[in-house]
């Protein structure tokens, strides 16, 4: 306990020093770049995905030939694609096609929905799109879909039953959708992992934000592709709420940086979102946008 406090103290001091040292320079150039994210602006999702991935170094950099790829979109709710509670089906199907083209042996899409899974999968259009593109999408409904895992670096969520396909995979890609959330303020990339655990009620009983960050010490996606083509500003996570249309897709290998940028789309200070702050402090990524290089691309 004591050593934890000290570590925390040291980190805070280091961060504070970094912030103070950056402060005097009033410029858009990022000083100490810790992460780079790519923000692709446009209307055509498939072109945006291609442009973003080209900047990231191509799918081949992440997907090795003959490997299994696991995608995790957010398909938790009964919602139409334009209502923005679920990830855009076109984005999912384009990712599957690209993974297949890069040599993936199979693409699996596990999801634990909040609403009835058949209804959610059908109304979101993601199941249809995924199946057409050659992916295998299924609902995490049975015990055999999960494996109990210890999370040694966690503070609260010391143990969790995690989807086997998320653990045993060649390449893990998070494809969340950005939207408001009644209690977590925003649902972005990191919180999307709630959809691969068996008992998410535990998270609500025990410091939700800390659990979200804790889980990210175990599950580390190779890539986060955040869908912000349309965002639900109010009444999330379920909707229907007020919509905004940033027409953006955010790419990054640092999940915290992607979430921090996405928070600004909602005009929120990244560190005002509990789990971004905690994840940043735990060293899971960089949530401080002053240290993140944001590369804008227009398609």
């Amino acid at each position: 306990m004591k050593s934890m406090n000290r570590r925390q103290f040291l980190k805070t001091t280091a961060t504070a020093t970094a912030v103070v040292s950056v402060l005097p320079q009033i410029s858009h150039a990022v000083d100490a770049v810790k992460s780079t994210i790519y923000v692709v602006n446009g209307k055509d999702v498939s072109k945006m995905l291609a442009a973003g991935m080209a900047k990231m170094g191509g799918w081949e950099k992440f997907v090795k030939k003959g490997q299994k790829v696991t995608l995790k979109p957010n398909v938790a709710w009964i919602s139409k694609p334009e209502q923005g509670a679920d990830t855009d089906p076109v984005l999912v199907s384009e990712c599957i096609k690209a993974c297949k083209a890069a040599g993936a042996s199979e693409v699996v899409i596990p999801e634990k929905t909040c609403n009835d899974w058949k209804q959610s999968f059908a109304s979101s259009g993601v199941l249809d799109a995924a199946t057409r593109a050659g992916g295998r999408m299924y609902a995490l409904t049975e015990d055999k879909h999960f494996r109990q895992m210890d999370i040694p670096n966690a503070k609260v969520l010391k143990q969790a039953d995690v989807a086997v396909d998320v653990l045993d995979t060649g390449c893990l890609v998070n494809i969340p959708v950005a939207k408001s959330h009644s209690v977590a303020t925003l649902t972005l990339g990191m919180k999307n992992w709630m959809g691969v655990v068996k008992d998410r009620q535990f998270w609500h009983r025990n410091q939700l934000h800390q659990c979200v960050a804790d889980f990210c010490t175990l599950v580390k996606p190779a890539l986060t592709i955040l869908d912000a083509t349309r965002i639900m500003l109010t009444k999330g996570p379920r909707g229907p709420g007020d919509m905004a249309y940033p027409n953006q897709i955010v790419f990054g290998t640092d999940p915290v940086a992607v979430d921090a940028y996405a928070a600004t789309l909602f005009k929120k200070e990244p560190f005002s979102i509990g789990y971004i702050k905690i994840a940043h402090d735990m060293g899971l990524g960089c949530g401080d946008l002053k240290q993140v290089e944001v590369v804008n691309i227009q398609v």
Partner: protein
Amino acid sequence: MRPAIRVFFFTVAVIFALQVIPVLVEQKREKESLEHGSAGVVSSMAITGRTLALVLPALSPFSAISSAVARQSFGWFFLLALPVLVMGIFKGRWFCFHLCPTGFMAELVGKLRPGSKSKFVALPRLGNALAFFVLGGAILGYPLFMWLDPLCMFNGFFSVWHTPATLVTLLPALGLLLVIALSFLRPNAWCYRLCPLGFSQELLGKTWRHIHSRKEQATTTVKSGHKPDAGFGRRLFMALLAGGITGFAARRIFYKHYPIRPPGAIAEDRFTALCARCGNCVRACPKKIILPDVGESGLAGLLTPVLKMDPDYCVEWCHECTKVCPTGAIARLSLADKNNIAIGTALVTKQLCLAWEKGQACMVCDEYCPYHSIKTVKNGEVLCPEVDPEICRGCGFCQAGCPAEIKAIVVHGKPQRKLAHVKLQGA
């Protein structure tokens, strides 16, 4: 000829009661819907699949007339009872001897003990009185004992065989089993002494012949036979009166507490009698939250459908239970109408609530509520839930999702009422 008709109709009845066609249609539609990415697997008003389930119990003119009188209105399904009604007028008990599946089973079981075939004769003809008792109750809106209808019992027996089967879900099968047991102990006693459907047909036939013979009397001389028993009419009148009094009393005495009924259920003081316990709504619910009641709505409501919002809830994309009721105890509703009816109201117990009591970031109830009926209030810095009873439909998603050790938000029954329309996600 008669055995052939019996076996044929029995087979048809079993297929209907087991809901073989509905299940097949459902599976096909679900598969198609998933493939084509269209929502609304069970949201259509079309008369397909499950709706067929109401055909068998709706054939009975006994329950059709009783329920129509009790509701003071006719449903379209009343038409289904007309063929048997007409059959009764012209052919008396022809339906019993040729078509009734319960009668067929009773007859078969009775044949196991040929020695005691005529023991039933000593028993009083209760069926007559029963039919009039029910009619008397129906006039005052409470057709008590309508559930003794043999077709409803038959349907109830077959509709319970679906997973998950627990003792409670299997209870409605008891009616038919009792009839069979009775037929074993006293062959023919059910059909000739008790069955209200059998007697209502007999009465229809008799009345018709009575009117007919009177007409003949006027023109020709009296023929022997067809003489109404002395005191017959008086006894039936007494039964009618007794039914009326019981119904009148029952509607006023029993109903202080409201269990959660399926959407579209008629007011509680009539529901317990109008429900024929045919098991259709229990079977139709895709979430299996409709269960036959034991205890919650008292003795009068034994085996009537009640909703248990744990572990699932009354989903906003379904109105299946409203399509399958043969007596109109549950009104037929469109999906939008069903979603605008409050079947109960959720209440937060603050002492159990993770947010109110323990300061956790929870609000799962708000997250889940399809109608956004949870108001967020701040308790210090913590967001806490409160229910807006003017929006809450009592669907129970909050209860199903509540992560507290003991559910902190629970739906309570109340008289159903219509609320203002709320736009739903995905609609």
